[in-house]
């Protein structure tokens, strides 16, 4: 081969390769949701690819527990995918601050999301957003409809009705009134304190005031949820101190318990296991006619690797994730993980539809401990687990628990000092 023909061959092949690359860009998605692999492959990706010819998408999840470690090392090594699924708050914020995640504040699709929806993936001042909010989970109660019909109980709207219903169930004796244990601790905080709390501290108003330092955890609206949980003790099953999270799930799906303080992620699991009809109600308010607040917690977002060579294609994809089309696809594929977009979406699962319907009646907020307040030591979220479990067990009074949390927070968080 002469030098000239070699040069031509080289040139042609480069051109061809360049043309091929221009034709087809392949985006790789990093995620911890390996449970969702088939849903992405069968439903979401084909929908996107048919609407956007020339962009191919590969969903490449890792195991949930390893995700943070794997993702960090891949990003450091420069081998991470183009699209990164983001955990909410500090873990992702740290990646953004290190320059690993791209700034997506100006992405057109971002217009579809409220500030609360974006808070999980925004800087503390809310000025910059680096991941498109994908899904949230809503808290409330799931109940056994058959049991309620059998005992003639109406869905409770106020706290008084709630406890009257629990009393009735307890008096009957067929069912354990509330399915919850304190062994794993987190349920008491996540499905207890942060489930019923927003009604007392008025959702975002209280949460932001706590971050700003104008309210304290010892204020009445922050102690009141503990006071209600202290009353739960009498309605839990025997030996609830050693009852684990799966135990509670089983008690409910086997029809032995009537009410389950829930997160909406339980829906698909309960659908598969429960042999009775289920309904849901939001945390009862203090008095008839009070404004209701729900915990509509941002849980999954999706962002762009700052070092990706396919930034344009990645932005096209992320913009699509912000669209109503994606929201409807995703929410119906995974009932219980709700889209965060402002556009209304209709869900096929009635229970999931009931949960998402509360967004129309109640004000949404997120879990009080997640943004900023769990950055130091002692960590407010973990401490809240411990305090909530102790309050339910009766080993600590609501006031003492609140005082302990406040002094812990004040020890490292300047606005609370």
């Amino acid at each position, binding site marked *: 081969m002469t030098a000239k023909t070699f040069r031509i061959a080289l040139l042609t092949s480069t051109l061809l390769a360049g043309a091929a690359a221009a034709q087809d860009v392949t985006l790789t998605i990093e995620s911890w949701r390996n449970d969702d692999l088939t849903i992405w492959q069968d439903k979401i990706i084909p929908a996107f690819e048919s609407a956007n010819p020339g962009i191919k998408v590969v969903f490449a999840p890792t195991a949930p527990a390893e995700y943070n470690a794997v993702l960090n090392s891949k990003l450091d090594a420069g081998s991470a995918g183009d699209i990164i699924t983001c955990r909410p708050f500090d873990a992702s914020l740290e990646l953004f601050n290190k320059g690993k995640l791209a700034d997506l504040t100006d992405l057109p699709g971002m217009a579809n999301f409220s500030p609360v929806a974006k808070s999980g993936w925004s800087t503390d001042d809310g000025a910059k957003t680096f991941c498109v909010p994908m899904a949230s989970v809503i808290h409330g109660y799931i109940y056994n409809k058959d049991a309620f019909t059998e005992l003639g109980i109406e869905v409770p709207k106020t706290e008084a009705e709630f406890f009257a219903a629990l009393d009735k169930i307890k008096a009957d004796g067929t069912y354990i009134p509330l399915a919850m244990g304190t062994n794993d*601790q987190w349920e008491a905080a996540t499905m207890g304190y942060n489930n019923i709390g927003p009604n007392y501290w008025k959702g975002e108003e209280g949460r932001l005031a706590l971050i700003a330092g104008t309210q304290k955890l010892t204020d009445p609206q922050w102690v009141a949820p503990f006071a209600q949980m202290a009353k739960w003790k009498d309605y839990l099953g025997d030996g609830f101190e*050693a*009852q684990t999270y799966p*135990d509670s799930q089983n008690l409910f799906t086997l029809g032995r318990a009537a009410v389950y303080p829930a997160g909406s992620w339980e829906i698909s699991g309960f659908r598969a296991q429960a042999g009775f009809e289920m309904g849901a109600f939001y945390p009862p308010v203090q008095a008839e006619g009070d404004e209701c607040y729900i915990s509509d917690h941002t849980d999954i977002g999706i962002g762009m690797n700052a070092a990706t060579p396919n930034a344009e294609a990645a932005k096209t994809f992320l913009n699509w994730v912000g669209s109503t089309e994606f929201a409807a696809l995703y929410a119906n594929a995974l009932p219980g993980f709700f889209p965060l977009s402002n556009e209304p979406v209709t869900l096929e699962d009635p229970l999931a539809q009931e949960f998402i319907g509360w967004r129309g009646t109640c004000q949404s907020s997120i879990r009080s401990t997640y943004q900023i307040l769990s950055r130091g030591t002692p960590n407010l979220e*973990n401490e809240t687990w411990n305090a909530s479990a102790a309050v339910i067990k009766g080993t600590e009074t609501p006031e003492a628990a609140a005082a302990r949390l406040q002094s812990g927070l004040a020890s490292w968080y300047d606005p609370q000092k």
Partner: protein
Amino acid sequence: MIRRRPVRWHIAVFLAPAVAVYTAIMIIPLFATLNLSLYNVAGDNRVFVGLANFATLFGDARWSASFWNALGNNAWFFLVHMLVQNPIGVLLAALLSSPRLRMAAFYRTAIFIPTILSFVIVGFVWKLILSPIWGIAPGMLDFVGLKGLFAPWLGKEAYALTTLALVSVWQFVGIPMMLIYAALLSIPDEVLEAAEMDGITGASQFWKIRLPLILPSIGIISILTFVGNFNAFDLIYVAQGALAGPNYATDILGTFLYRTFFGFQLQLGDPHMGATIATAMFGIILVGVCIYLFGIQTRLRRYQF
């Protein structure tokens, strides 16, 4: 002409792989951990802070409360093993070495089997057994009319640690049993015959002849138990999670280290404080082993037959 002793290169050559591997995966990381505990993060930089991390660990009310709680729990965990596991091990070994016992091999195997099980299985199985909802413990107690004694042991602050320590004893009682059994078998018959000639038989033979002869084995077992207990982590983590509930009642140094070093839930990991705790653990174990080696081991009398 004086013949020089040849340099024995083969010794170095044969030792080299083991020394290299051991250095790479044990000694260097150990010193790296000690080193890490002397640094901290200020802004974006790692800065040398000397012993400031230790000052935080022991001086800050919250850190020191967690540390002493974990150390106290560790000590109780160890004490339960010493008071329960080792006497039961000696007793079982003494029973097994009795020539009149039938099916000794079967008992030996049955008692030893739990030791080869994984912590994960043991923790999970016992959690199920003791579960107030599905467990067989309440039912079995009910069967013998003692239902009133049942409590959700793993969920009560007062009982959880002792329960887990006893589960650990159940799992590992086979090891002291086997070691002491071997020691008992190695006592020469002449010694025992001489004792019998002097009229020392039965229980008094055990206390006066056999027990002194197996004391070095008991010493070794104690120090193994000490090191194992103060490094413990798995069983607590499997049964109670990294928060070592209820209310940190089962928190030991291992789980405290894990939570701090790797982070947990929303808490981001803090490698520097984690390394500080690891160093403190290393110090505690080192001191314990030294006390044993110089205080006890050197005073133990050994008998040569």
